[in-house]
């Protein structure tokens, strides 16, 4: 049976080159990077090299990279660490209504613990403007968190401009770059960003490795206590193999970006064009400021989980923002924040392309999808031909 994976925003396969780079650190070079004997030193050397590589690829200094166990942990550390660290300076935090739950739920937790949080609304394409951020900043604002690109609808936020606005105010700026690392150019030597979180498994690295860029001079309270690792900012024996894998994966992604991004953008646009031919279909997010691999649509009158099950039966792996698939009773908070009705948000489909996808895959999906949508509409009481 044909099997097509189109959920690269969820996770990606580890590239063989990445796995190869990681392998020695599981067995031969198994040492604890904090130990002083040769095994420890060799592990530490691997760690240092990985840190240098990653820092170099994003315009940061090695000591500004803090490794974590996930992108979610990095985002939690950015929000909670900055909030607690800056508590004496102010009590106000700004973020957006469309953030990933790692940011959103951290903000809600801080709200529960006495901080005041402003959740900025977005326009119909899911964008927040620098002016909105400027208007929301108060004298007691200590942190602003706006994602680089949205994981559900692919909309890219104007983070360079927002960063400048935040810098003027003296607050810290965090951006969740989990979806953009290795895909878009991120040069932290030129961007006004204080904190930036990312995750290896979104760019063909291993799961269980994330990182937070912490600009020199920014003080964060650690989340994980208990050791001197990562300059006392994150305790825990380093996942050397994973970190080495992350560095290799980012190196490859950046090296191949110039070729891969235009290739995948073309496939994306081909897919969007094809899906638009299905009646009662709307494309979510911005068409111009969009992740090169993201396709997000809503099919009216049908529900997302049914759609995914049908796609799975035909070998296509995708995701949806329907309530059933979001694990709650509500459909995607992102689609609702963009002004979609519950009814339409339940019928959302996200296809995110990756390295292995080809034009044949696009054709296959475009061949199968209209039939599935038609079938489900035929049994929908909402559909009135």
């Amino acid at each position, binding site marked *: 049976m044909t099997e097509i994976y189109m959920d690269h925003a969820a996770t990606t396969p580890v590239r063989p080159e990445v796995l190869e780079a990681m392998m020695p650190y599981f067995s031969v070079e198994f040492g604890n990077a904090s130990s002083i004997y040769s095994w420890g030193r060799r592990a530490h050397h691997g760690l240092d090299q990985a840190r240098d590589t990653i820092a170099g690829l994003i315009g940061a200094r090695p000591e500004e990279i803090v490794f974590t166990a996930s992108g979610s942990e990095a985002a939690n550390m950015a929000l909670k660490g900055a909030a607690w660290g800056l508590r004496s300076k102010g009590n106000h935090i700004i973020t957006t209504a469309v953030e990933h739950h790692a940011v959103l739920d951290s903000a809600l937790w801080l709200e529960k613990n006495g901080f005041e949080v402003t959740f900025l609304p977005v326009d119909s394409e899911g964008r927040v403007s620098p002016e909105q951020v400027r208007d929301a900043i108060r004298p007691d604002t200590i942190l602003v968190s706006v994602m680089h690109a949205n994981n559900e609808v692919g909309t890219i936020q104007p983070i360079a401009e927002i960063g400048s606005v935040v810098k003027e105010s003296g607050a810290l700026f965090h951006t969740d770059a989990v979806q953009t690392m290795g895909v878009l150019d991120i040069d932290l030597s030129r961007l006004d960003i204080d904190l930036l979180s990312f995750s290896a498994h979104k760019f063909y690295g291993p799961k269980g490795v994330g990182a937070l860029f912490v600009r020199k001079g920014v003080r964060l309270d650690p989340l994980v206590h208990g050791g001197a690792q990562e300059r006392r900012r994150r305790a825990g024996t380093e996942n050397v193999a994973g970190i080495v894998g992350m560095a290799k994966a980012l190196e490859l992604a950046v090296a191949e970006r110039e070729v891969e991004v235009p290739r995948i953008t073309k496939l994306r646009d081909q897919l969007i064009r094809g899906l638009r031919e299905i009646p009662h279909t709307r494309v979510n997010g911005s068409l111009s400021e969009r992740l090169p691999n993201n396709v997000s649509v809503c099919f009216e009158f049908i*529900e997302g989980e049914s759609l995914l099950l049908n796609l799975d*039966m035909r070998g296509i792996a995708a995701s949806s923002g329907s*309530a*059933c698939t979001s694990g709650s009773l509500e459909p995607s908070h992102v689609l609702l924040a963009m002004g979609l*009705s519950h009814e339409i948000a339940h019928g959302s489909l996200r296809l995110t392309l990756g390295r292995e996808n080809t034009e044949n895959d696009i054709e296959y999906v475009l061949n199968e999808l209209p039939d599935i949508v038609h079938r489900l509409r035929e049994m*929908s*009481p909402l559909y009135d031909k």
Partner: protein
Amino acid sequence: MYSEKVMDHFTNPRNVGELPDADGVGEVGNARCGDIMKLWIKVEDGRISDVKFKTFGCGAAIATSSIVTELAKGKTLDEAEQISNRAVAEALDGLPPIKMHCSNLAADALREAIADYRKKHNME
């Protein structure tokens, strides 16, 4: 996550469609929560002689709708009224716990249709 039986009814739903000359119609759920079931029944000599459904919803919603039509067909109104949501789930070899509440409404739709029939025929 779904049983084979759920997948069978989801993939090949029985009795999909509408009955233009239905004797009773039931509708439950709302688009907000993502599940709407509409069910039509035809009644002859106090028995459900035909039943059809249309459902907007997840796999569980479609499968429960499908199997409730099978369970109801041929039953007297009193018998059909006794079919519970739990019985529907059991007939499908169970549903994931999260689906028990939100998407297990098919028996409710059937009861609505029976109530509608009784109302129309002054049998309340």
